[in-house]
């Protein structure tokens, strides 16, 4: 039997970053839910939930900085990997949407082929760009404001309620993203293919996916 061709998609730094981020966001979502709805959710005790939320928030902040510096200054591939190019915008996104919406069910192949230089399909590029450069900074900055500074600071931003409302709604976007992301991770050529890639770094190159 011919050995499948393997490509090295995710270097160790990226994998470490990814799993810290994944567990961090999941922890923040769970503790955040308890902090907002304490009369319905009580997993740790309120004080513990706040402490875990604070600590994890700082950790995810640092992890985001690791991601940013790695892709901008070390790998220098932020724009190449995350910013959709003209092809992506004109036809790539539509093809990818058609694939997920219809062609996948018909059994047609994925129009996007992963390579180390082109890891993300056009839809992923748009989503990740939005998440990593807009939503993550918003939630981290609002979280830091709520963590470190008294309500007086919020006066300059229109009040603490704007900050807290924004923080909560963006957090909900992350929770929604988690479900979609986890589901899409199972859409590789096998159920575990993409998940194994994010653990080992290697992905089996398959023609029709």
């Amino acid at each position, binding site marked *: 039997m011919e050995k499948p061709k393997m490509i090295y998609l995710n270097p160790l730094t990226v994998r470490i970053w990814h799993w810290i981020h994944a567990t961090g966001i999941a922890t923040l979502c769970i503790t955040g839910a308890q902090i907002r709805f304490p009369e319905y959710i009580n997993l740790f005790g309120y004080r513990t939930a706040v402490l875990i939320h604070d600590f994890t928030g700082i950790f995810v902040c640092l992890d985001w900085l690791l991601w940013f510096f790695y892709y901008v200054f070390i790998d220098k591939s932020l724009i190449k990997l995350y910013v959709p190019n003209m092809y992506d915008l004109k036809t790539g996104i539509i093809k990818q949407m058609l694939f997920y919406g219809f062609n*996948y069910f018909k059994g047609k192949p994925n129009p996007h082929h992963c390579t180390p230089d082109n890891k993300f399909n056009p839809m992923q590029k748009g989503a990740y760009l939005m998440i990593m450069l807009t939503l993550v900074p918003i939630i981290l900055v609002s979280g830091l404001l709520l963590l470190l500074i*008294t309500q*007086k600071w919020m006066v300059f931003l229109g009040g603490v*309620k704007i900050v807290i*409302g924004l923080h909560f*709604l963006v957090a*909900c976007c992350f929770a929604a*993203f988690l479900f979609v992301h986890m589901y899409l991770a199972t859409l590789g050529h096998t159920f575990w293919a993409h998940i194994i890639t994010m653990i080992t770094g290697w992905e089996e190159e398959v023609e029709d996916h």
Partner: protein
Amino acid sequence: MVLKAKFLIICIFGFMMLVAGIGINSSSAMETDDCLECHGDLSNFDEGDERLYVDGTQFAGTKHAEDGCGSCHSVTDDHPDDGVVPEKESCDMCHEDTVDELSKGLHAGNAECTDCHNPHADRGLKSPGESCGMCHEEAVEEYLNSHHAANAVCSDCHSPHTVMSYLETSGFEKNKQCTTCHENAGHSEWLLRNKLHMQATTCISCHTDSKGIVITMYIEKREDIKPDKEGEIDLATYQDLTQLVGDKGVQSLIDTNGDGSITTAELKEFNMNSKYKSVGLWGMLSTKTASHSYGIFEDRRDCSFCHAAGPKAMQTCYVAFPNQDGTYSRVPVEEGAVLDPLFATADFYMVGSTRNDIVSILGLLIIAGGLGAACLHGTFRILTRKNRRKH
């Protein structure tokens, strides 16, 4: 001739002074020792008249003893045979400012000096049970049963002369009474965001078993707010607010229609009005009732005691306006105003409890959208799995 006239005037004046002197003497002729001869012996008084007894030894140690009985009680040499009931003591002859203060407070007409003070005893403040407890029986009984009673009497926290009611006093003023003794009670060893909690809660909310949550919004000055980490709350005075609204009355700052209550719309209008940028609302949590059962309640260390109270417990809110005399008048705010998502009480948010339901629903819909999309796609994925096997 002129000399004779002057001499005559001096003689008349001298005579008048002599007569006046005799008059004064005649009304307070008795010396303290004379008084104590009778009043210092309890057996001289029938049952019910014990109040007329004065402990001579105790009285001798008082400052009042230097002035003598006659300085407060006017009697004649024939007392008690003259049948004249001596006039009541008049503290204002010496303690004019204090009596004046008392006459302006809540106690005026309700309590006299001697209800709380025993002028015949050294440090003559009566015990809580004998003074405040005569009227405030329930509160004193509650207080005497608390651990606090061993360390402070009523007047250590309440000023009995400039009496202000619970509602007329700001939360900050209430807390000041506590920090007089408990100055280092920052709670930093266990309470997260402890300084913020101290600024947004009254001590008695946690350290008594007072019931019900009330949020009182105070108007603070914001001209000097710098984006520093910590800041003190600088409450606007009556004069500060008068400068903003002129002679319309300070309440018109927010209660624009003057109906004695504040709607959510009026709060928003105030918060959005650039004319009032120099002031803002600072919310403080207190309780509906004020109990005197001081102590440390372990359940208050559980943050969920307040934070899991839920939005339903956060309905009652007031705006406290400063009065000219330093007291505060509370104006009720429309129920649930503190739950407004944005501008009604833009700077008051109690995590967990003052969440806005619409924002919560919107957030949950976003999550449901993500979960639903995954579930929907997964369902079609299962239904169409045969198609993919073919390829």
